[in-house]
C-alpha cells in the first residue's frame, strides 16, 4: 500500500474503517468521541474537534504545481 499523505495537525488517529472492506466501495470512517477544543478555541477554529481541524494552506509548491493558476 502506498504511503498516505500525512494528517494535518491534530487529526491524530481517530476514526476507524472496518478491518475488511469490499473493493470498489467507498467508506467514511465514523467519528469517535475524542478530544475537544475549549469553547473559545472551537469558535475560532470553526470546529470543536481537533480531528476535524483542516485549515486550508496553499503552499508555494502546490501553487507551482497547480495548472489552473
Amino acid at each position, binding site marked *: 500500500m502506498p504511503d498516505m499523505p500525512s494528517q494535518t495537525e491534530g487529526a491524530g488517529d481517530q476514526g476507524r474503517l472496518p478491518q475488511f472492506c469490499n473493493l470498489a466501495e467507498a467508506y467514511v470512517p465514523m467519528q469517535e468521541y475524542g478530544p475537544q477544543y475549549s469553547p473559545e478555541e472551537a469558535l475560532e477554529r470553526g470546529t*470543536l474537534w481537533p480531528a476535524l481541524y483542516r485549515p486550508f494552506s496553499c503552499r508555494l509548491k502546490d501553487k507551482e504545481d497547480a495548472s489552473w493558476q
Partner: protein
Amino acid sequence: MAVNPVTDLVREMQKWHFMALELNLFLDTHPANRRALEDYNRAARRFRELWERYEREVGPLMDHGFSESPGDWKWPKGPWPINTGI
C-alpha cells in the same frame, strides 16, 4: 478584544451556542453516545442561562412572540448586533 460588557456577553453566548451546535451534529450520527448527550445538555443549559441573562440585562433577543417585553416595548431599542463590536 472585547470593548464592552455586552460584547463580552454576546461572545460568551456565541461560544456556547457553537458548542451546542457541534455536539448536536455529533449526536445526529451517534444518538446513543451518553457522554456527548451530557456535554450537549451542559452546553445547552449554559447557552440558555446566558440568553436569559442577556434578556434581563440588555433586552429581547427575538421578536414576534419569542421574547417578552416587560414594562415597555424594548425591541427597537439598542444595542443592535452592529453596535456590539462582534
